[in-house]
């Protein structure tokens, strides 16, 4: 995807790039679901279907040199930041061509070259990292920012609060991106957080600047993320990005969602960020199909690459324990 010119409205071509990015994630995730159901993929997998605009909007606003931490729901962030789909898919297959060489898996995608400090399967686990990395950038006076993605459910864990406190206190170069998709596994927002309908309140306890944004509108996400990143980059302090979004599918692949009403699913489906962007760009069926075909092709190539990848040797398990 072409890098967006900063400080001016997004042009059509950029938005088309965003669409490509979002479609890549969507089709990637759909293929992953399909392959998991076919019994191809080991482990626990969580897809980001419905949340593609957050991944693309935020990651496109990041600069080279910025770093980030992701979560159990990491495919989208990783693809949006430019890690080749082949390397991501190969990781899900546990191949040495994978972005974590087969050691990590879906919940532990890494790509140091692109500043991916790791998807974290412990809720809140990456938040202190970006606080510390943001501190390092500040101490060294580097124009870099450390950013973390996390969900609404993650705002309940102590690690979240300790990290925000420290970041604000020390004005680290950090951005905290809360993807509020209204669910933590089977637990709806109202059942896990007293401020579930306005997560920006979480930042009040630290006097931290927060920016609220509609996560289904990729342009808005990009603008807000850009603003947050530049604020943090300038050394003025961290920012809490409160993103409203939707989880269109189950928590994990295979989740029957017994806990979820039809209305709730429909509401999510009605807020498809790809449909939104397609309408914004007024794309006809053919035009859209061309984008879509391209995305599917990339994913199919990735799949083939991954399926033909190399299994590690059993004894490789004893490598990389220490540097």
């Amino acid at each position, binding site marked *: 995807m072409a890098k967006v010119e900063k400080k001016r409205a997004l042009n059509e071509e950029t938005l088309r790039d965003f669409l490509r990015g979002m479609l890549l994630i969507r089709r990637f995730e759909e293929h992953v679901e399909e392959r998991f159901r076919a019994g191809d993929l080991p482990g626990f997998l969580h897809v980001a279907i419905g949340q593609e605009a957050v991944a693309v909007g935020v990651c496109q606003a990041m600069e080279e040199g910025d770093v980030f931490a992701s979560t159990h729901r990491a495919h989208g962030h990783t693809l949006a930041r430019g890690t080749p789909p082949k390397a991501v898919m190969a990781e899900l297959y546990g191949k040495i061509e994978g972005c974590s060489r087969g050691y990590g*898996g879906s*919940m532990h995608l890494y790509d140091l070259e692109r500043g991916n400090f790791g998807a974290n399967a412990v809720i809140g686990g990456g938040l202190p990292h970006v606080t510390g990395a943001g501190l390092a950038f500040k101490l060294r006076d580097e124009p870099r920012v450390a950013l973390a993605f996390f969900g609404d459910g993650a705002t309940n864990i102590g690690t979240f609060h300790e990290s925000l406190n420290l970041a604000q206190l020390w004005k680290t170069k950090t951005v905290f991106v809360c993807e509020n998709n209204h669910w933590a596994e089977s*637990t709806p927002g109202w059942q896990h957080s007293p401020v579930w309908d306005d997560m920006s309140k979480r930042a009040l306890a630290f006097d931290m600047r927060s920016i609220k944004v509609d996560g289904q509108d990729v342009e808005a996400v990009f603008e807000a993320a850009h603003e947050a990143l530049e604020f943090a980059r300038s050394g003025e302090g961290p920012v809490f990005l409160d993103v409203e979004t939707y989880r269109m599918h189950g928590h994990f692949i295979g989740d029957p969602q017994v806990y979820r009403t039809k209305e709730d699913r429909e509401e999510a489906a009605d807020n498809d960020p790809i449909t939104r962007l397609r309408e914004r760009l007024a794309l006809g069926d053919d035009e859209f199909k061309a984008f879509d075909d391209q995305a599917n092709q990339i994913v199919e190539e990735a799949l083939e690459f991954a399926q033909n990848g190399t299994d590690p040797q059993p004894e490789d398990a004893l490598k990389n324990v220490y540097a």
Partner: protein
Amino acid sequence: MTYREAVRDALGSAMRKDEDVFIMGEDIAEMGGSMAVTQGLLEEFGPERVRNTPISEMAIVGAGIGAAMAGMRPVVEIMYEDFLTLSLEQIVNQAAKHRYMSGGQLKVPLTVRTQGGAGWSPGAQHAQQLEAWLVHVPGLKVAYPSMPEDVRGLLWTAIYDDNPVILFEHRLLYPVKGQVPEELEPIPLGKARTIREGTDVTVIAIGPLVHRAVGAAKQAEEEGISVEIIDPRTLQPLDEDALVASVKKTNRAVVAHEAVTRMGFGAEVAAVLQYKAFDYLDAPIERVGAKFAPLAFAPVMEQFIIPQPEDVLAAIKRTVGK
């Protein structure tokens, strides 16, 4: 009855009997827990007694402690035992010590259930076996049942014990079936179970390794080695007498668990046995456990790390010099 049903039965029975028992944990209500263990309990007991919690392991355990100090018998669930790391302050500094620090005034009848285990590529943060840590903490009781009957009886006992009890389950055990008595029978904490009698070597195994040891024992038998298997079931208090008696009979011992060998529970067992059965041992005590690495994702590496039946068999053979 499966192991999963056995856990559910113990919880349901205790809640039916006793208003003071309630359960809380992440996603245990509508969803029935990430391992479907608590399915159906919400329907029977309602949301006041089957409580979905926010993701806050410290507060979950700590609120359980508070409710226990106020006279209830809460059972809390930590979804994966890796996340015990988020609640150890409350388990180790609080639950384990309130009775002691108060000079005997308080009691903390709290049960903490958790589960983990490899064998399905969960990766390095969703499969650790941490039972050894808890065994190091005076004031806690620790159980790790391997059979449906045991988990049902021990969980019941844990709930009615006036001390904090940590109960470890293993994901691969949930579908395991076993005979259980019609009536729920409490099983005392601190009593080992002889899984299988034998004369040449004693395998002391816990959790999934009990089942892997059974496989290994059958193979050993074909090679003429008679294997006794003992499952301590409770790691704290530990039924040292049963272990020592068996080893005095067989003169050889293997200790097996899925946790990392280094500093794992097998170290304690080996230390006890070499001390109490020193003159009876005809061979070094073998330890079987995970190799020294975090759990890799790729299945071939994962399987290499965790102890397999063949690893138990190989250890058995080494003890008899084959």
